[in-house]
């Protein structure tokens, strides 16, 4: 069964702005799916419609077979939403926020308490359960929204920019948590500006631009479409001029940093053999841009 199915989804706001121009999208059950796009592309509008926060102009939304028009309550039961902006009562204690959300989902108070404890413990917020939400750090507030979204154990979790503004350590622990959740069977859809996040977590991506899906493919398949990769090498000894290597473009960013453009049909082995032949010792290397970022820019460039 598909976790999410969008058919010809359109949204025109009151001022006439056409945010979605007929989106078609299918997310299979169990998928870890990224919805990417520049600011204003229509990602949040699409998520808003799926989560019943935005009224669609036309089109069809189905979540695990529940039609948004015919069975809106079934759709809402199946979704857990972690929005981009903090949207809880800042003056309520952390535990109460999660328990109340369980109550809105129809879970009896006693069970709601047990579930809130379990979610807050998993997200390292149990010690803060009696603290007013406004006293939490940014990362804790994001985790609180995840705990709240999961308290009714939804089969589909939608996260809109879940790691925006959180530090690397928290981001990594959130990545691990989400990967575990996905392994346990929860379908996850996320939007993110951090393309390395999508590349690290998601198996499938759709790119939305100007209200249309411009790409929708498996991550591996997409990455194989990259024609070249740009590597940045850190050197042991300073270099005055880059060596000439046939078929590759090299330039010195500074005496200890070398940038190399490698086409897909060229091997890295040859690059390192040539560098060794020129007596250049490489200490470390990294991609200049994430591979997905490169592809993203290419796709948006083509779409424009």
């Amino acid at each position: 069964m598909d976790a999410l199915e969008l058919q010809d989804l359109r949204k025109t706001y009151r001022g006439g702005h056409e945010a979605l121009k007929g989106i078609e999208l299918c997310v299979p059950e169990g998928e870890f799916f990224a919805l990417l796009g520049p600011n204003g592309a229509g990602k949040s509008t699409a998520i808003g419609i799926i989560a019943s926060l935005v009224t669609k102009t036309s089109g069809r939304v189905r979540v695990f077979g529940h039609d948004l028009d015919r069975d809106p309550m079934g759709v809402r039961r199946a979704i857990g939403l972690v929005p981009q902006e903090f949207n809880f009562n800042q003056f309520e204690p952390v535990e109460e926020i999660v328990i109340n959300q369980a109550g809105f989902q129809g879970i009896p108070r006693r069970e709601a308490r047990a579930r809130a404890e379990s979610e807050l413990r998993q997200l390292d917020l149990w010690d803060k359960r009696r603290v007013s939400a406004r006293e939490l750090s940014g990362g804790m507030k994001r985790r609180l929204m995840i705990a709240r979204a999961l308290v009714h154990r939804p089969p589909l979790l939608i996260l809109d920019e879940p790691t925006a503004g959180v530090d690397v350590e928290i981001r990594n622990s959130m990545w691990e948590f989400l990967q575990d959740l996905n392994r346990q069977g929860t379908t996850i859809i996320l939007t993110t500006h951090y393309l390395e996040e999508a590349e690290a977590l998601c198996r499938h991506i759709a790119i939305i631009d100007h209200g249309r899906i411009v790409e929708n493919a498996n991550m591996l398949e997409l990455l194989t479409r990259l024609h070249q990769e740009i590597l940045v090498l850190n050197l042991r000894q300073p270099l005055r001029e880059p060596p000439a290597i046939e078929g590759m473009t090299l330039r010195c960013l500074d005496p200890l940093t070398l940038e190399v453009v490698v086409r897909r049909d060229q091997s890295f082995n040859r690059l390192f053999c040539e560098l060794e032949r020129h007596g250049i010792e490489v200490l470390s290397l990294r991609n200049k841009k994430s591979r997905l970022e490169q592809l993203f820019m290419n796709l948006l460039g083509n779409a424009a």
Partner: protein
Amino acid sequence: MNAYWIAFQTIVVKETMRFVRIWPQTVLPAVVTTTLYFIIFGRLMGERIGPMDQMAYIDFIAPGMILMTVITNSYANVVSSFYSGKFQRHVEELLVAPVPNGVILAGYVCGGILRGLAVGLAVGGVAAWFVDFHPHSPLLVLLVFVLTSAVFATGGFINAVFANSFDDISIVPTFVLTPLTYLGGVFYSIDLLPAVWQKVSLFNPILYMVNAFRYGIYGVSDIAIGWALAIMLGFLASLSAVALYLLHKGIGIKS
């Protein structure tokens, strides 16, 4: 237990905890203001004003004073709570959950009624220091109490749906509710008014509520009780229909 019933209970508990947590802002001011009203208008001035509708002036104003605080507090509870939910966006917690619009409305209105009840009881306690209460019909007192607070809680909900700023939630209480309450027969019997103004007063719904409440306590009223109850039920049904329509269309809460 039915999921919608649990959701309703959750909203009511959440709303109740909200006004209980901030009781110095929600309950105490009404008690202080009413005490002052009783001392100044009831005791100091009331004795010079003389009887009204064959009763002491302080006895006459007591039911209206209680109902005035019920009206103000029921309205204020819902308008401030729902608007602050919109402002902080935590109303989205309800919109994404499987909670029907009727349950959302009923939950907030019930929260408003409970605040009206809490403040009404506190003010009633103050009134008991000044007035000897022996309710003529306790059932009618309770019915009017609940209907009045439900009407104004629903009105507060509609105001909150349309409000775009904190200024918008104070306009109706200041320019509509307060004048209507003061002209609704709290401090005088409409028999004192010239014939034209008596007729104009009959368009003020608060007049019916105050008189029905006064009848419940003393068995004395300017207007027919059946008519008063019908008007309250009519207002409640109409305002509820408007509120449900707004929720259904997502006006003021969805883009």
